[in-house]
């Protein structure tokens, strides 16, 4: 991806880049579209709060979970959201290490997306507890009763992985924001903005020696975030892979989940970037080159996921294990088969169009495919969680899971929460990394 059309339109200079990006926050009036979008998102967030309060008041029984399907929407949504988060880290960390310069106009909001997605993901394990008020028992703290967490449990690994992921992503994001906050401090006209951005900028002044340490730290963080991002979805996959359930207990899960995570994450980046660049006239900064590259990554990771589907079926057959084979057949023709085939349609067939450059350059088509991928990845988690649980070893304990209105409300609510945070981010923080784009447009001598 080194050659090809320019990453940034050549007409931009260091000064215009800064003005263009900072004007979104500092000078332009709040667009009507923002107000509408934010209102809708806020309404959904209120739905979320209602659903959560009802849950706390009435108990986990308001959801559709039961025995045998003790995990339902909460875990599906958890895995989905945290997977989406992965693209941000991948763009900011792995592409940085690979010196992919095109990442620099999308990494900031992709990182923000990561943070918000992880936040949305993290609420689910907490909400799905029977007794959420005791969630802190999963942390090793010096407690009076002296009982520590059980470190063999993948759920404890989850706590550490997700907490670390969120913290490191936040640090990474904030460190990246530091010089841009200084720009805002300097460009802001209003006193309050100057003070707020000034405090957040910590007195950054662009000293060459600071830049030197800054670059080192940023690279090290990228180096740390890279194994971290791989580990997080690996650990999430351990929730399933270390269990003994047919269809869950497989060594395939870690790579399959990581690829799926990046896949859905890039789909989300596209779903966000395409309207954003149109709304704020950022086509010169987020160029067709970006979209093309992201589509290629989506295609590559999507094919890995498809390989996973094929291998799951192969393993089930090759294992010779009664329960495994039944699980696979049930997945394909059982009561939840529509979810499986819809997943295949979204993740297996729809993305094949991305082989064609014409499709990758067609922005509406790309947007549509990215949406399909998001749906497909959600459905994939749906059938993984449900088909293994609802019919496992003893036919006598088989059952069905039907989500309730509160399951849907909570899911829709987190989408609202995600977009609420995203709208606030767009309104108050630079959505493209200015200092990094400046480096791209600065004429080299």
């Amino acid at each position, binding site marked *: 991806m080194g050659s090809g059309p320019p990453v940034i339109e050549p007409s931009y200079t*260091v000064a215009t880049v800064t003005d263009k990006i900072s004007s979104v926050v500092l000078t332009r009036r709040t667009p009507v579209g923002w107000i509408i979008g934010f209102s809708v998102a806020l309404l959904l967030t209120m739905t979320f709060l209602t659903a959560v309060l009802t849950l706390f008041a009435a108990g986990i029984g308001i959801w559709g979970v039961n025995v045998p399907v003790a995990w339902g929407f909460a875990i599906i949504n958890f895995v989905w959201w945290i997977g989406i988060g992965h693209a941000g880290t991948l763009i900011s960390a792995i592409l940085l290490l690979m010196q992919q310069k095109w990442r620099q106009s999308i990494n900031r909001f992709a990182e923000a997306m990561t943070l918000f997605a992880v936040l949305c993901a993290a609420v689910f394990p907490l909400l799905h507890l029977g007794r959420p008020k005791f969630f802190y028992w999963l942390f090793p703290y010096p407690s009076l009763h002296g*009982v520590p967490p059980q470190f*063999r449990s993948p759920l404890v690994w989850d706590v550490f992985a997700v907490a670390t992921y969120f913290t490191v992503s936040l*640090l*990474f994001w904030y460190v990246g924001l530091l010089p841009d906050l200084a720009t805002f401090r300097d460009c802001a006209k209003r006193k309050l903005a100057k003070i707020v951005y000034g405090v957040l900028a910590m007195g950054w002044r662009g000293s060459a*020696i600071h830049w030197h*340490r800054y670059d*080192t730290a940023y690279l090290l963080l990228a180096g740390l975030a890279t194994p971290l991002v791989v580990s997080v979805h690996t650990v999430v996959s351990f929730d399933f892979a270390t269990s003994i359930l047919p269809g869950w207990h497989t060594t395939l899960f870690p790579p399959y989940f990581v690829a799926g995570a990046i896949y859905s994450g890039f789909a989300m980046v596209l779903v966000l970037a395409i309207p954003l660049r149109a709304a704020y006239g950022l086509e010169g900064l987020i160029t067709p080159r970006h979209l093309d590259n992201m589509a290629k990554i989506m295609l590559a990771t999507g094919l890995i996921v498809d390989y996973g589907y094929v291998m799951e079926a192969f393993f089930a057959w090759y294992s010779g294990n009664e329960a495994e084979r039944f699980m696979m057949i049930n997945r394909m023709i059982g009561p939840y088969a529509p979810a499986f085939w819809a997943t295949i349609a979204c993740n297996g067939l729809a993305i094949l169009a991305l082989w064609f450059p014409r499709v990758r350059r067609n922005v509406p088509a790309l947007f549509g495919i990215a949406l399909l991928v998001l749906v497909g990845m959600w459905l994939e988690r749906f059938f993984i969680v449900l088909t293994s649980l609802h019919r496992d070893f003893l036919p006598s304990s088989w059952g069905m899971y039907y989500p309730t209105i509160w399951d849907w409300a909570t899911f829709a609510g987190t989408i609202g929460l995600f977009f609420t945070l995203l709208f606030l981010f767009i309104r108050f923080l630079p959505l493209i990394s200015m200092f990094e784009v400046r*480096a791209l447009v600065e004429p080299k*001598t």
Partner: protein
Amino acid sequence: MNFPPIYGLLAEFDTSASLLKAARQARAEGYRTMDAFSPMPVEGLSEALGFRHTRLPWIVLAGGLFGAAGGFFLQWYLSVIGYPLNVGGRPYNSWPAFIVVSFELAILAAAFAAVLSMLACNGLPQPYHPLFNVPRFESASRDRFFLCIEAADPSFDPDKTRRFLESLKPHEIFEVPH
């Protein structure tokens, strides 16, 4: 103690290349206590100012090792010494299961080490700096490039240094008050 009347002299440049050149010449002229400012990192600028390398990677490595060792010790102690329990017939010291948390804590500690030590070495947060007294310095975060020779430098002389800076053909020269 006797403070010089000003903090230093600040020269503004149009491009990173001219700043880099200016910095090299200033060092050649014998100035040591000086700093350059740019809206984005400029390759070679810190070396031009005489800054060699940073200890940051070592601090991060130490942080990571501490996180890993601490994390493993925590799990081992709690599972083997603190409250040994027969959990599913697994050994008390189920070390393979303890790898994940050790790894995550290693990353966490290393990341904190990286960010905190970067801030600490840079002396941030720093709410006040004399350079902020120069109104024009605001554009250092937008598109302008600055070189500041501080009055604390032994070879600083208000007139001589100003003449030297003028010889670098800057856009403008400012006096930086305290």
